[in-house]
């Protein structure tokens, strides 16, 4: 199998990889770049656990070869919310509402919700459900995930891009979350 040198722009950092041409973006991100937040779920583009943002659009990393991703801006959950920084308000809402159980689908859910909010900041419950149709969850039954996203949509989003700020997310539930964190 032919190999190619690829430059990938991931979460604002450039990675240079020497990989087989048939290596999926999923495997390149998970195994070569070392991002555990991009996960194998089905390799057929249905389940959404490997969702990443390619130039801002939710994309199944299993349906793209890594070589095709060159020249595009790739964002994973760790790019949306740096694990060394305070949690993103949407992540806090997931904690507060129990939007994660086994957690395997969670990064994909968060990225899909973020992309929806950017396109349609006032999305209602039905629109949230419609948007999540490409992200399967087998644990929660979706209700708590939709609750979390809906609550976040209704929050004041002024603080989203400024870690450290508190505001609408500091409800009683979020306090409990902080205690657990």
């Amino acid at each position: 199998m032919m190999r190619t040198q690829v430059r990938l722009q991931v979460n604002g950092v450039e990675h240079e990889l020497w990989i087989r041409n048939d290596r999926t973006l999923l495997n390149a991100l998970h195994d070569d770049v070392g991002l555990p937040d991009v996960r194998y779920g089905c390799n057929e583009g249905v389940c959404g656990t490997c969702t990443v943002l390619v130039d801002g659009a939710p994309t199944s990393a299993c349906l793209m070869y890594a070589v095709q991703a060159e020249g595009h801006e790739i964002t994973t959950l760790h790019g949306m919310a740096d694990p060394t920084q305070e949690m993103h308000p949407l992540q806090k809402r997931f904690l507060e509402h129990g939007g994660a159980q086994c957690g395997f689908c969670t990064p994909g859910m968060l990225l899909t919700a973020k992309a929806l909010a950017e396109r349609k900041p006032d999305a209602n419950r039905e629109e949230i459900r419609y948007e999540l149709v490409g992200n399967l969850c087998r644990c929660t039954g979706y209700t708590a995930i939709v609750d979390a996203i809906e609550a976040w949509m209704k929050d004041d989003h002024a603080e989203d891009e400024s870690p450290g700020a508190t505001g609408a997310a500091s409800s009683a539930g979020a306090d409990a979350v902080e205690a657990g964190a």
Partner: protein
Amino acid sequence: MTDVTQEQATPVADRPVVGESFNVVGTSPGHHDFVDKVRGTLMYAADWKLPGMLFGKVVRSEMASARIVSIDVSAARELDGVVAVLTAEDVPYNAIVEHASGGLGELTVPQPVLAADRVRYVGEPVAVIAAVDQETADEAADLVHVEYEPLPGVFSPAESLAEGAPLVHEAGNVLVNWRLERGEVDKAFSEADVVVEEVYQTQHVEHAYLETEAGVGWIENDVVTLRVSTQVIEHAVEIAEILGLPANRVRVIAAYMGGGFGGKEDTTVEPYLALLVWRTRKPVQMVWSRQESIMASTKRHPFTMSYRTAAAKDGRILGMECDIIGDAGAYPCLSARVLFAGAALSTGPYKVPSLRARSRAVFTNNVPTSAFRGFGAMQVVLGYESQIDAVADALGMDRREIRDLNYVEKGDAVTSGEPITTAVAVAETREKALARLGPPNPPSGPGKVVGQGFGNSMQPYGRTIWFRDHASAWVTLQSDGTLLIRSGVTDLGAGQAASLCQIAAEILGVPLDDISVYIGDTALNPPAGGTFATRQLYMSGNAILRASRKLRDQLAPVAAALIGTEPDDLEWRAGTVSRRTGQGELTLADVARAAQDAAVDTSVLYTWRAPAGRFDPDVGQGGTFPDYTFGTHAAEVEVDVETGAVRLTKYAACHDVGRSINPMRVRGQIQGGAMQGIGYALSEECVMVDGNPTSTLFANYLIPSSMDAPDIMVDIVESGEGRGPLGARGIGEPPIGPPAAALASAIENAIGRRPTTLPFTPERVLALLDQRGGDDLSHAEEAQER
């Protein structure tokens, strides 16, 4: 929808819990595991990488029933980058050992790790490969040439039970034949005013955890170490047997799972990883593809359930006959126990004075079936709920009234003759679920009919009591006042580890932030016995409760002496110990250091043993399960009379959980279990044609998406009576039971015919509509429009 919002707006954490007041139990903190999950930092089984790590691949049978003539691995071995290709002759002890049902009469049939001379299902492993990367391993798998000679196969229990049927195993095609009998069944039927009779059919279903079977193995300290996605680390013993090693030379570490639902209760990747690691002496990773996971992992048993129910005209059930045949697939796995649960729970939460129940697990050349949330006790819910509805209809009685007359109560005998020892609040869960569901919506347009229905269920928690179950937990107070918990528990994502922290925090007054919990390691943690059978809150919850109390009792005299009071005058709260009046406050660090000075242990290892008992398979009576969880789900559907499509429009679920340790997690279990049951009821089926799976993609094995169901509205009942810690009952499995029954009832309410074969696809519903005939239907539609 308004109801939902209000329900969600009520902080679950603030709900009062029964009895004594608690500080931590009954609240819903965001535990360590949740934080890692939403941050995307949790290291699952596939997120583990070691220097020089190889990648494994299982070569699987493409035939359902065949003799292996030869296996040619030469081309695979010669491929660049391939390090090992192993077949049956490379396996020191070629049998996956299952200590199935405890020796109560089932056949003993070994399942090979790698098929040697014969394959019995499509997907059965025949060889295993290690290579320098996954792509090479996959390529090598295609180069293994197996020559098969096809043999006749059996692809349903009916074919398998037919006279002269080909044998799946020489020992016979019936793995086990359970019988439970009590009362005078023939007399009950001869005296009955009404007898209803029906056959119910369920299907093969896939667990469909988002994380496929995965793990990494390596050798450390000359010990084969496997870090895998498993519900049961105790399989280390069986893996050692396969390798021909002493039990102390295999260590299994359980990563937090990306879902399990019973599908990671049997071994999955472990034997194959272990063989490759042992042969290559190198680290190896194995991740099953989604396709092989759906094709070859164990499934839920299709049940054929033939029910007969006898009732008096006042509505009392007099007797029941139930015959269950389960498709075990090609190997035993846990089929004997699943079929036992089916027979034992065949009457559900109803008094049935005379019962004759029989259940058989039958071998076929289909994929093996085994544990799946609900474990045999969930398939029968469609049976017993449909039967009691049918009796009510035959007598012209209300469906609630007939249940109120027949519900079991505390002290009543269950099918095996033993009494129920805790409260039965099923009438309360039913009323709550129905109230939450509310009045029916009008149809959304012409050609649509609306119906409502409900279903109750009774699901055991804890292992059958003849296993003499036990679990250990180890708590250690560090000199700085922080706490370590060590437990062999594995975590499915339901908060198995987190609930242990919450209970310990409650008893010892250690803030949750100051607790670290180490789980799932056969080398470093005391055994907790696997996460299945809704047993961990019951078993490890009781163990941690007692370990924490014992540690508190051990430290109390030290603290009391420092404060100058009596040990029973102490309050343990928020990292401090003080007199109940609040005076003389010490930190836990003060207490820990004082204990060390006084040579008092700051650590307790506690083993909790569940009450044990015996079951007599010849008499069909005896001890079965420790206790049960009851609940009710209520559903509203809209059926399209042109297409037969069923749209679920409202759904409410309520269970009695005894005591809610973490209300948010309880609600999450109920919502998720309900949704998995809704998929089972409406869309999920592993279709096989002569043993060949035809739905091995998420594109054609349809688990519910966010668009397929409405919000799951939840109410929690806390009767205060359960056998778990602080009166809790298990809630992991119970919510998957009622959905199919609730939906069958709702569909019947909408179209006047009750579906009896799962899943309730548009084709099947349309066939029922055709049976009923056009005239009746337009009448029903008109009635609803009015």
